[in-house]
């Protein structure tokens, strides 16, 4: 049992708008492990993350979480444990505090919202408590990205699916987020699968890298068919 991966994905295929992007991918992530996911632009990294979170169906393959088929105990329960943070910040048109509180209002929530914990987590991302009352959509994209990461960490998931989590950050904020992710994985056993563009960042941040290039399906049309509806 000790060797059982937290997330075990076998023979995955992912497709967008009927076009197969990725085939035959096996992927295991252990507790406390940071794994980078790299591949050329538009190859389906975002689609794969969305499919792993179950926001869209996989084109094929099986995903097990803690040894059981993901979603077997209910999709909200699975997604509470394996939280996807998309690249483009998605925030409600409300205060930062309301945004951080929102996930605690779902039926699946086991703890209640703690303002102290929220302020502390924001602080870990370099955002002071004065941000709590501000409208989240009025913040800069980099600040929004960090609020989104704080919101995901605050519900204490077992694993994060991160799509380019530092794409809108300056180098100082990026270093802070990298250090924080490293610390949370070491101290709390958080696992993360991180889509990254920059191979140096992948080597710096993650224990290992999964390169999608051997798993890309041949494309019938242009190489830039990309994933529809996904902001780039």
């Amino acid at each position, binding site marked *: 049992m000790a060797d059982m991966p937290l997330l075990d994905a076998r023979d995955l295929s992912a497709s967008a708008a009927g076009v197969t992007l990725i085939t035959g991918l096996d992927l295991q992530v252990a507790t406390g492990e940071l794994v980078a996911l790299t591949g050329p632009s538009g190859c389906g990294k975002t689609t794969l993350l969305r499919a792993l979170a179950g*926001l869209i169906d996989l084109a094929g393959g099986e995903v097990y979480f803690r040894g059981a088929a993901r979603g077997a105990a209910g999709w909200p*329960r699975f*997604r509470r444990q394996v939280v996807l943070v998309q690249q483009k910040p998605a925030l409600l048109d409300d205060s930062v505090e309301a945004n951080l509180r929102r996930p605690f209002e779902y039926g699946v929530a086991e703890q209640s919202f703690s303002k102290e914990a929220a302020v502390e987590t924001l602080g870990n991302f370099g955002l002071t408590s004065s941000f709590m009352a501000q409208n989240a959509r009025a913040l800069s994209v980099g600040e929004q990205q960090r609020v989104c990461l704080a919101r*995901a960490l605050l519900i204490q998931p077992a694993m994060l699916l991160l799509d380019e989590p530092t794409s809108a950050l300056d180098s100082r904020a990026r270093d802070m987020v990298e250090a924080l992710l490293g610390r949370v994985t070491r101290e709390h056993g958080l696992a993360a699968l991180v889509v990254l563009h920059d191979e140096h960042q992948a080597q710096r941040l993650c224990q290992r890298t999964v390169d999608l290039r051997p798993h890309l399906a041949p494309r019938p049309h242009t190489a830039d068919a990309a994933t529809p509806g996904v902001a780039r």
Partner: protein
Amino acid sequence: MNDPSSVELIQLDTARLALAAGMVTVAGAVSMALRLKLERQLAIGAVRTVVQLLLLGLVLRHVFELQSVYAIAAVIAIMIAAATRAAVTRPKRTFRGAAWRAGATLVLSGILTTVFVTTVVVGVRPWYQPQYLIPLLGMVLGNALTATALCLDALLESLSENRAEIEMELAHGATRWEAARASLAAAVHRGMIPIINAMMVVGIVSLPGMMTGQILAGADPFEAVKYQIVVMFMLAAGVSAACIMMVWLVYRHMFTDNHQLRCDAIAKRTT
């Protein structure tokens, strides 16, 4: 004092209708003077008004005389088909299967409310007596189709525009209901606003057509008002039933059992 019931309805003969048509030519003259180029459309509109209403009059007279269930059912089917078409062509977005869902919504909300009014409230015998059933159903359908179209438009717009936020909620463990609730409530709200506004101003700003018609036909205004009250409540019930049903059907289509939002199912209307 004149007893209102003693006032006879003045019959309109062809000459009087022709006089009324003369009033449309005023609009035509304005259009020509200001070079609005609306004369052609005005003329077509005037002719269509005459032809469509005369046809309706003929059909209804025939159906009222026949008192045949089949004839009434045929009229109702045509009314519902036309209302369904209007309800799904007004919104800016659509999806495959929108038409039958709107149709089912109008059938259920329209017929249930109307039949409740004819059987229980007014007590018409038999309940399908067309003089009552068809005009009442027409009023319910007219309002329900507007409400259905508004709901559909608001919900599809909200799901498309707030897709990222809804998926963010799902990704943090929200059920589809928790993630969709705000959009669903906003859509029902949008659909119900017109009838609520109408109830606020009825009798002060607007004199409803049905009531005006009854008064013109010689009915006691107080009797006409009582009917109008029934009609307003009937419309409120029909509209809320239509809003809730339409929104529920769209919700069940747009969210899968795996708590996914099927945003790709929504398409912008091209025409």
